[in-house]
């Protein structure tokens, strides 16, 4: 019995219920629940590292009739990212929401969001994935409107409607799969699915739905308003984690379930959209006047980078080379997750001190909030992809995959995207490190500044030095038809 697998879902869920029952204690329950979820994920990860992919057939029914939870290298990496980021953000949020009247609701929904993320990364059943997607979408929407402003509500509503459309597209894909193959279990499907109209159409519909949720150009328009108007801790997890969940599912579908269906042309189309997203998102980030808006546009660009890998992965033969490229993709996603959450937390600190986040008026930040300014610089290093960050190694592998496959078209995209990322980062740092009075006098802000700087350090140093662990974990697959 691998009942261990249920804990990353059960712990945050149980904590959410407790936080709802005892609103006065919600902050404690929230932080403690997040910490215990982290522990559960660490235990699961240890077992996967030691003994390979694990499976839990829920209710004792064979997968197919019942639902299976599965953990393999990819899901463990995503779980670790989401739980570490949410731990740091939870510490920050315990200060951020300490005086808010929506504190108790925040913590309940926060824990439900973690439940949804963990359930999604562990699920081995297509319909169950739909339920987790809806849970993730709804809790994210509610968290996004906690800011209470008109803009944030409008953005949250648009996010909700588009998310629902995406879920519907995903669900009809699931229906077609059940029609064609008679099962919803992903391990069975990984073996059964073969190229044909059913698989092709189902994959298109499911991918289409997920593209809305992962905000790939031109379906990105909902993201900047939703992410930039939410409260800072919420923006951090929306940009770092929620978008990645949809991306994780696309990877699962394309590489494990539908690997025989994916055509080079389809991958090329997504790659091209990714390329446009890189250029357009970076350009918009350079134009942005507000810090959080800049960070949100930068997310659009970073999502684009991840999609650049798809045509390369489709062109590479199964085996070590492909695993290396896949590892690079995951490494880039992880680095962005840590860097972007650090960035949003730092933006939150500045916003609370200065009362605004207009980039041109951020002079004096470095003197008033040295740790936060340092965080922005570190996160910037990771967003550009400078050494020793994880994204430097990832982009290096991206380039070498471009050389191996001969898809030269991506070279200028990567080059211009990196230059633009450098430009928007240095533009921000230029203002932040300039003298000025834009940010109020420094106060003691330990619990607010430390989580952000730790996240940024993970992105720039830890992931850079321990990148080999990512490459070792990625080939461990629970799905036979996949990369394993």
């Amino acid at each position, binding site marked *: 019995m691998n009942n261990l697998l249920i804990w990353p879902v059960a712990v945050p869920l149980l904590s959410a219920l407790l936080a709802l029952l005892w609103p006065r204690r919600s902050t404690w329950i929230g932080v403690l629940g997040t910490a215990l979820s982290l522990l559960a994920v660490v235990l699961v990860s240890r077992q996967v590292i030691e003994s390979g992919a694990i499976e839990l057939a829920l209710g004792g029914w064979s997968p197919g009739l019942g639902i299976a939870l599965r953990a393999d290298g990819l899901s463990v990496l995503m779980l670790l990212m989401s739980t570490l980021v949410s731990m740091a953000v939870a510490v920050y949020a315990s200060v951020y929401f300490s005086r808010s009247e929506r504190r108790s609701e925040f913590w309940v929904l926060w824990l439900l969001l973690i439940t949804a993320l963990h359930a999604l990364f562990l699920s081995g059943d297509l319909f169950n994935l739909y339920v987790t997607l809806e849970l993730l979408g*709804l809790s994210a929407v*509610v968290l996004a409107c906690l800011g209470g402003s008109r803009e944030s509500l409008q953005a*949250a509503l648009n996010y*909700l409607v588009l998310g629902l459309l995406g879920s519907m*597209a995903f669900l*009809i894909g699931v229906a077609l799969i059940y029609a064609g193959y008679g099962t919803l279990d992903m391990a069975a499907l990984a073996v059964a699915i073969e190229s044909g109209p059913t698989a092709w159409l189902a994959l298109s519909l499911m991918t289409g739905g997920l593209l809305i949720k992962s905000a790939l150009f031109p379906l990105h328009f909902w993201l900047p308003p939703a992410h930039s108007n939410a409260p800072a801790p919420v923006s951090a997890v929306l940009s770092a984690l929620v978008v990645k969940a949809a991306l994780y599912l696309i990877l699962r579908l394309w590489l494990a379930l539908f690997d025989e269906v994916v055509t080079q042309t389809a991958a090329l189309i997504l790659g091209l959209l990714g390329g446009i997203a890189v250029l357009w998102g970076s350009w918009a980030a350079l134009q942005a006047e507000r810090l959080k808006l800049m960070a949100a546009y930068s997310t659009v660009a970073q999502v684009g980078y991840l999609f650049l890998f798809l045509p390369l992965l489709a062109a590479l033969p199964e085996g070590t080379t492909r695993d290396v490229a896949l590892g690079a993709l995951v490494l880039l996603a992880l680095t962005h997750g840590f860097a972007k959450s650090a960035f949003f937390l730092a933006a939150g600190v500045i916003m609370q001190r200065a009362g605004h986040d207009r980039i041109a008026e951020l002079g004096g930040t470095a003197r008033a909030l040295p740790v936060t300014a340092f965080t922005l610089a570190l996160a910037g290093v990771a967003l550009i992809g400078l050494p020793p960050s994880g994204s430097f190694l990832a982009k290096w592998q991206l380039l070498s995959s471009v050389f191996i496959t001969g898809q030269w078209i991506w070279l200028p995209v990567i080059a211009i995207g990196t230059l633009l990322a450098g430009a928007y980062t240095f533009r921000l740092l230029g203002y932040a490190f300039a003298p000025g009075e834009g940010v109020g006098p420094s106060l003691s802000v330990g619990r607010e500044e430390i989580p952000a700087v730790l996240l940024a350090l993970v992105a720039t140093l830890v992931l850079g030095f321990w990148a080999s662990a990512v490459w070792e974990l990625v080939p461990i697959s629970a799905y036979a038809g996949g990369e394993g």
Partner: protein
Amino acid sequence: MTQALIYALTGAVLFMLGVRATLLRDALLPRLLALNVCGAGVFLIFVSLAYRGDSLPVDPVPHALVLTGLVVAISATALALALNRRLREMADE
């Protein structure tokens, strides 16, 4: 199996009608109706997959999936309506 096919095709039409209206309409309420019609289309496809003629027992799995889907759909609808209401109140203030 012809009955099943008739309803499944109807489901496909309903789904795409819903998608069309979601894309074309601007206001929230029509869009919500459209998304619900979308959902009904998918549910109809699921249920027609479960139908195996009047003599054979049906496949209960799609029925259960649709029940789950129905509850999810009404939850989302309720949330969207609440958000919309708050927005209107703010516009009036």
